[in-house]
């Protein structure tokens, strides 16, 4: 009975994790392979490329996760009510998920191209639909770390917000209508109901969104790889370490760092959402 679970755990998790850890902790010294060795981690800590990638990844996650949560909340509140064509609207909102990420990324690559991309043309007032000339010279989106990562984040958030929406929507629908009605009869207005009833009851759904989405943000690869190639995040740096630096050990070391960060941030998110719920109730 347990065999499938054991094979799954062994095959997909344990073996890979052990292998990655062994590689990350093995150092090819002058006198042969040293194990265990923290040499790769020490090397990384002094590597400016790694440090920059770490900072970028933190910002990417710290900004992108809340944006996805808010996008999910807004979308969920838009479609939760009863209205004609609700099914159709919901389906349209889920469409981004049906498009392969690589396709979305490449479309964004074309749209934000330099010097002749659509966005640049639009901002320079080349199209009748938007006859305002906001910039005179085109922006090199991929030439700036800030812009490149913003575009990557935009793609990531756009593609993934249906997941956030669905989780929040499920959370919203799980709230007993009579609880809202009870609050109304007890004198609460719409704002008070939202703050004191709906929001606290949505905390579990929101913390699920934050946990799932922050993990995805930490390890995001495709959008930054295509759209911000010169400004690697940790996940894209792993690829670079493996392919460009030809250093699989260091690639594994970065992967381990990423894993620890993900576990740490998940713990923080869970802790914070618990505090948040308490605070919302007490306030």
């Amino acid at each position: 009975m347990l065999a499938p679970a054991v094979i799954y755990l062994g095959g997909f998790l344990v073996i890979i994790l052990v292998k990655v850890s062994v590689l990350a902790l093995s150092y090819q010294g002058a006198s042969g392979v040293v194990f265990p060795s923290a040499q790769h981690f020490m090397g990384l800590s002094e590597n400016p490329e790694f440090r920059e990638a770490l900072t970028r990844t933190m910002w990417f996650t710290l900004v992108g996760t809340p944006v996805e949560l808010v996008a999910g909340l807004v979308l969920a509140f838009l479609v939760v009510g009863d209205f004609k064509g609700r099914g159709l609207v919901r389906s349209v909102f889920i469409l981004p998920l049906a498009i392969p990420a690589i396709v979305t990324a490449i479309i964004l690559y074309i749209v934000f191209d330099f010097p002749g991309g659509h966005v640049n043309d639009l901002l320079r007032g080349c199209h009748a639909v938007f006859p305002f000339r906001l910039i005179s010279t085109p922006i090199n989106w991929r030439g700036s770390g800030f812009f490149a990562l913003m575009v990557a984040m935009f793609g990531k958030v756009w593609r993934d917000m249906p997941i956030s929406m669905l989780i929040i929507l499920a959370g919203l629908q799980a709230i007993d209508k009579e609880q809202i009605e009870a609050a109304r009869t007890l004198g609460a207005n719409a704002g008070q109901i939202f703050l004191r009833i709906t929001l606290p009851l949505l905390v579990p759904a929101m913390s699920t969104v934050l946990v799932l989405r922050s993990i995805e943000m930490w390890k995001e690869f495709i959008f930054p790889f295509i759209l911000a190639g010169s400004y690697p995040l940790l996940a894209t740096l792993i690829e670079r370490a493996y392919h460009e630096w030809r250093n699989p050990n260091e690639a594994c070391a970065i992967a381990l760092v990423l894993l620890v960060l993900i576990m740490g941030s998940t713990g923080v998110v869970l802790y914070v959402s618990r505090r948040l719920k308490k605070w919302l109730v007490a306030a």
Partner: protein
Amino acid sequence: MTTVRLEKVSKTIGATPVVRELDLVVGDGEFVTLVGPSGCGKTTTLRMIAGLEEVTSGRLYIGDRLANDVPSKDRGIAMVFQSYALFPHMTTAQNIAFGLKIRKVPGDVVARKVSWVLSLLNLKGLENRRPRDLSGGQRQRVALARAMVVDPEVLLLDEPLSNLDAKLRIKMRAELKRIHRQLKTTILYVTHDQVEAMSLSERIAVMREGRLAQVGTPLDIYRKPTDLFVAGFVGSPTMNFFDGTIEQKEGKATIATRAFELALPEPVWQRCKTHKGKTVILGIRPEHIYRRGSSRIKEVSGNTVKAVVTVVEPLGDRVIVEVERSDVRFTLVLPEEARMVPEMAVTAVFDMEHCHLFDRASGKRIAP
């Protein structure tokens, strides 16, 4: 404390009329129960008074104020929901204090009122529990406390006891009566359980298909149901009904069913003379049929029926006995000592002073 007045209040959902031209007045401090089978519109009526459903037409007054368009929060009402609708993320104390905090009542007053209502409803010691850690009965009391603590002028209760087990239900019934006597709040109570309605209320409004079938004191409704529906709905076990023809032979008025003939007492005959020769429906409650020998009424010719026992349902102190005579079945309630068994022959004595006659076509009461 205030009055609630409904004038021709109707509610239509889509094209379906749910409540039709309801006229009802609930007096200051009165305990009135809306009772009826599910789907009769009683809960919708309550929700209209609560401001959770719009009134389609008609006028709803709470006190002297026309309340049709007054938002729920300004109506001076509080409601207890069938599901209790406690806030799961709040403790008992927080749930109860919710309405007061929303009204920006000062903290010391909140503490005092919460403490008062906790002891009124025997909830002391449960202040810091979450709803999921409370039993059904405790949740029910928290829901009641949450509604009562805001000093509502009208307390609306929607089947508050229906999720409790039978024993607890009876206990809470007494509790509700005690609280009403103590606070004298106007209470409008909805239930489908006629026993609950009878035992709790000062007046009962029986509803059927969105209309009021009868309004009156529990005893009025029990003794003089206005039609077949009310007669069948109120009372347990249910009233026996027989098709019978009113006849007058040799100066004596009788009613003849398929299986037996019974004499009609003079006052009843006086009221149903007009139906002489016609088929009417005779109703008689099981508790008004006795067994020969144990009957409290005089056995005269024309009020006894010989029958055979078919089903016996012991209730402890009493037994409900179903008997049959020529395919006509009826039930009677006998003391436990009767020791009835199926196939036993029994002579039933009908207390015809307590019979009811209804028109067969309209179902309306004819006599007495």
